[in-house]
């Protein structure tokens, strides 16, 4: 039994999502080979080789993989993956994009977003926005899985796997990268943050999100948002926490001016400690919060920043 795990990386470094997916793969058992597919990605491959529990790193270094276009990744991973028992990727927007193509090309099902491993063929995954947990069993010869990274801790980095180059170049030639607008921030990414402070519709506008920044800086926190705040145009889409946005499980989640719609709760209810600040005492967010404060956020936020 050998697992092919597809690394999430930006060509220069592997993301924490990869370390978490390795821990999920370790729970399945068997050797773990990590594929780093990118362009000029040897630095990321060297990092992947240090992840504890990894036996081998495959590097597919070619401009066809620079932006990990789904069409090219689908061909590469289904080609490399046919001799493996499992193909695993973190359920990031990159993994979600190409993994179903891999499964379809191999004529097997995909099991999305696993949150627990029972055995080599049986897994838990949330359905209905996390309001139910399905335990499923796959009879496919190759199991294609994406991992909800918020449900697993990070693997260590004391490994020393061999690094092997993959020569295969798959360029489907039907898609191309045009541009990317990536949010630049000194703060941790939502998926990797120990503390997250999120704002909702109650923030009223994008300008007011500045009130969260000072607190975030003091706590080393990432800043998130509810769907309502993103839909209203207060902040960009990559800040959205929820069923269809980022799923997070930090040590501390502070929800500010967020009522607690089902789809938002689906994205943060596994946080260790939840704080809710809302002026509406009936807001559903209070039903799952460990600590609730009924107050006007515009009074509370400056006070909180000063108190930290």
């Amino acid at each position, binding site marked *: 039994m050998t697992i092919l795990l597809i690394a999430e990386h930006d060509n220069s470094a592997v993301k924490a999502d990869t370390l978490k997916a390795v821990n999920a793969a370790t729970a399945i058992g068997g050797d773990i080979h990590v594929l780093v597919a990118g362009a000029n990605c040897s630095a990321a491959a060297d990092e992947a080789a240090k992840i504890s529990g990894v036996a081998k790193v495959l590097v597919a270094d070619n401009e066809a993989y620079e932006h990990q276009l*789904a*069409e090219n990744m*689908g061909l590469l991973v289904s080609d490399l993956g046919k001799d493996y028992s499992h193909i695993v990727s973190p359920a*990031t*927007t*990159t993994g*979600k*994009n*190409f993994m*179903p*193509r891999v*499964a*379809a*090309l191999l004529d097997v*099902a*995909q*099991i999305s*977003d696993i949150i627990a491993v029972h055995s080599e063929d049986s897994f838990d995954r949330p359905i*209905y*926005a996390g*309001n*139910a*947990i*399905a335990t*499923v*069993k*796959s*009879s496919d010869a190759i199991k294609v899985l994406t991992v909800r990274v918020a449900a697993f801790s990070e693997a260590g980095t004391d490994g020393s796997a061999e690094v092997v180059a993959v020569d295969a170049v798959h360029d*489907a030639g*039907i*898609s*191309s*990268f*045009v*541009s*990317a607008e*990536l949010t630049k921030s000194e703060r941790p990414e939502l998926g990797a943050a120990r*503390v997250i402070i999120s704002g909702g519709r109650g923030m009223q506008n994008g300008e007011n999100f500045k009130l969260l920044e000072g607190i975030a800086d003091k706590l080393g926190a990432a800043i998130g948002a509810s769907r309502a705040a*993103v*839909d209203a145009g207060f902040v*960009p*889409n*990559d800040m959205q926490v929820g*069923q269809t946005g*980022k799923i997070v499980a930090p*040590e*501390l989640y502070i929800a500010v001016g967020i009522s607690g719609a089902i*789809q938002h709760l689906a994205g943060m*209810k596994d946080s*260790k400690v939840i*704080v809710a600040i809302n002026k509406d005492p009936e807001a559903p967010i*209070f039903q*799952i919060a460990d*600590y*609730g*404060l009924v*107050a006007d956020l515009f009074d*509370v936020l400056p*006070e909180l920043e000063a*108190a930290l």
Partner: protein
Amino acid sequence: MKVLVTVKRVIDYNVKVRVKADNTGVDLANTKMSINPFCEIAVEEAVRLKEKGVATEVVVVSIGAKACQEQIRTALALGADRGIQIDTELNLDSLQVAKLLAKVVEEEQPGLVIMGKQAIDSDNNQTGQMLGALTNMPQGTFASELVIENGKAKVTREIDGGLQTVELSMPAIVTTDLRLNEPRYAKLPNIMKAKRKPLVVKAAADFGINLTSSVEVLKVAEPAKRDGGEMVDSVEALVAKLKDEAKVI
């Protein structure tokens, strides 16, 4: 250009989900069902393409039991031209759905397929990508903007770090994210008109595809309950709790 749009009948997004006591699934008896919100956005986008003169025909397809004709009619009321129901009582996996849709693509030869990025019941986020692989079409998933020009589809995608734009040869598949558009409400005259639009029913069993899933659901359970905690009355009290009791700051 013909646009093919897929719609799925799912539990309405406002309804609270209840797990059955025998842990075999979710209780859907007498539950309000609706068009999957992401599919509704897909229909809207297709209709807008037609209104702009980019699309000439919008064909809507749904796979499921007869009840899903209701969702097809909703799509027709929003402006789609004709419907196809692929009839089955089975609860299909994404792969089987993608294989059936690949047959529809083969027959209809659309220039563009627009689908929801995921259904809010199974939360799989797979079918569009699988259809892409099976038909060798490129994909623009999680789209927040779609522009068709010079025979190419330019798709802006919502990704983890922000936005990414890709250019796809056509025919292509686009899966919708929330910010692509805001679907319109169907007007009463259009709802009446939709009743007369053509809707063809085909049996899933006639497509020559193995409809047996390789994934068995062993159990469906309630997630671990999270109890509400305590209310604090001041910022000072909150900070003290976080420091001394929860020890998270």
